């Protein structure tokens, strides 16, 4: 009898501080499996954000640095430019990446830096107690939008994949979610592709993971998964926005015909 799913080597078998049912655990596991499958654990450097995942260095067994809030893509640039043989990735939440860090992610993507960004979008600020995020939905109630996010005062949720897709340089941009087992399988494929492209030196790769925050949404974890599917996915469309690798394959297949 074989164990088909065993604990990833790149993930410490420890209890995490994340709330029960939080999507971060699923994302961490997918990254750890990816690093194992590519055999790159020993040459990977993770850049941790400020947010719930600030302690990701306690869970992923790789070299890690804690970046200032929003500045992870800049720190990752410094790392990857100086150590191009290392696999470098940033792991950022919606406040880190889409609020304070908008300049950094746009410019790193625009320069086509050869690192990977995993963007965990749960439409709220978790660590600081449930304030509005740039990706908070219209009418969604949070600590700082007690009557619901109003377009007039707070504007609309920001779609980062679409924004980055206007730039020439990024190599691979996909939005996935983790609210059903089937979608988790697809999300894992996307993360594996992103890191594989990085390993092959192809350019900037970006995966947005539509996730959940049961605690600050005030829902049970299973209900939060449903809420994410029913409310977030219509706003944050899942799918591939850019895949220069697939385009290249298609073109080559066309040429050989």
């Amino acid at each position: 009898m074989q164990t088909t799913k065993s604990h990833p080597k790149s993930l410490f078998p420890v209890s995490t501080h994340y709330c029960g049912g939080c999507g971060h655990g699923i994302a961490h596991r997918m990254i750890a499996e990816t690093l194992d499958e590519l055999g790159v654990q020993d040459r990977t450097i993770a850049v941790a954000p400020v947010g719930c995942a600030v302690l990701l260095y306690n869970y992923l067994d790789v070299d890690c640095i804690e970046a200032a809030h929003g500045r992870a893509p800049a720190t990752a640039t410094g790392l990857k430019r100086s150590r191009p043989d290392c696999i470098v990735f940033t792991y950022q939440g919606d406040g880190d990446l889409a609020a304070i860090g908008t300049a950094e992610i746009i410019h790193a993507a625009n320069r086509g830096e050869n690192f990977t960004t995993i963007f965990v979008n749960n439409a709220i600020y978790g660590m600081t107690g449930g304030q509005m995020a740039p990706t908070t939905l219209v009418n969604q109630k949070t600590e700082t939008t007690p009557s619901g996010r109003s377009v007039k005062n707070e504007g609309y949720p920001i779609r980062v994949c679409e924004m980055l897709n206007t730039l020439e340089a990024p190599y691979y941009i996909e939005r996935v979610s983790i609210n059903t087992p089937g979608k988790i399988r697809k999300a894992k494929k996307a993360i594996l592709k992103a890191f594989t492209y990085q390993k092959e030196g192809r350019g900037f790769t970006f995966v947005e993971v539509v996730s959940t925050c049961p605690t600050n949404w005030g829902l049970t974890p299973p209900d939060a998964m449903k809420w994410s599917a029913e409310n977030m996915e219509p706003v944050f469309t899942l799918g591939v926005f850019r895949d220069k690798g697939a385009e290249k394959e298609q073109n080559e297949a066309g040429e050989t015909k």
Partner: protein
Amino acid sequence: MKQLMTGNEAMAEAAVQAGCRFYFGYPITPQNEFIAYMARRMPEVGGTFIQSESEIAAINMVMGASAAGFRAMTSSSSPGISLKQEGISYMAGDQLPAVVLNVVRGGPGLGNIGPAQCDYFQATKGGGHGDYHCIVLAPSTVQEGTELIQDAFDLADKYRNPVIILSDGRLGQMMEPVEFKPRKPANLPPKDYILDGKKGRARRVICSLFLSEPVLEEWNKKIQEKLMRIEENEVRYETTMVEDAQVILVAYGTSARNCKEAMRTLRSKGRKVGVFRPITLWPFPYDALGEVVKKSRGALVVEMSAGQMVEDVYLAVKDMRPVFFYGRMGGLVPSASEIVQQVEKIFTKSM
């Protein structure tokens, strides 16, 4: 009527009562209760609340609202206040009023969310670039916090200068009885610099860029002259049982509370100890402190830091009397019993 409120929420309410109608801020522990309170309260008073994209954006939003003539403020904690330094320097150079609340946490870097006093240098010695000072007020109780934040708006308008309130994670989170007392409106100069469109008057420019060096020097002299007036008129401090004291405990904010507790314990054991509590950290009460310490045998400075205000105490006391230091870092608070131990050491060793 007294009510129990946390430091953060009470000070937010006090800001509203001072007429602040523009709040811009970004979440950071341990001041999130302040921003959440403002999110609820500003719409109730017809004010504007914006959770900005970053602390840098927030201070620049304050610049805008202040230039337009309104009472505006922002709040943050240590790492966020670091981000605001450029904006504060700009507002000092523009001579614009602003109120900035720093609920200090452990540092440096990301540090932790415990209370600390390690931003004293940042607040009082500049923080941002250029020749300027912010007025820095340090409350020690929630009630005092509500009064000082209202004073901050008046001082900011009186002198057209940024004012920093230095709170800390403990003061922000603790609950104490608060009474919002009616205040006499302050006698303030007219706001003849604000921007609201040049209809019916010569147009105005708010800037801090003066390409000609002599012109910039003149501008700086104006600012320096203003700072001297602030030093002459706005120094505040509190003394407790210093008249016959042999050791003066010098501390502000949360540290001062524990120093007072230590003082009571030591007095009950017959030790003559008093407390000197600066309330304005800039302008610092050098003269008053020097006078008080001169009459004693020496001072013990207590801070939640590696020792920052102690350098100003050395300047005040010079080599008249010995100055000792005791501090805790990392978000820890020197307890009253630790302070008692330190004072006992001083009594047995050197006196």
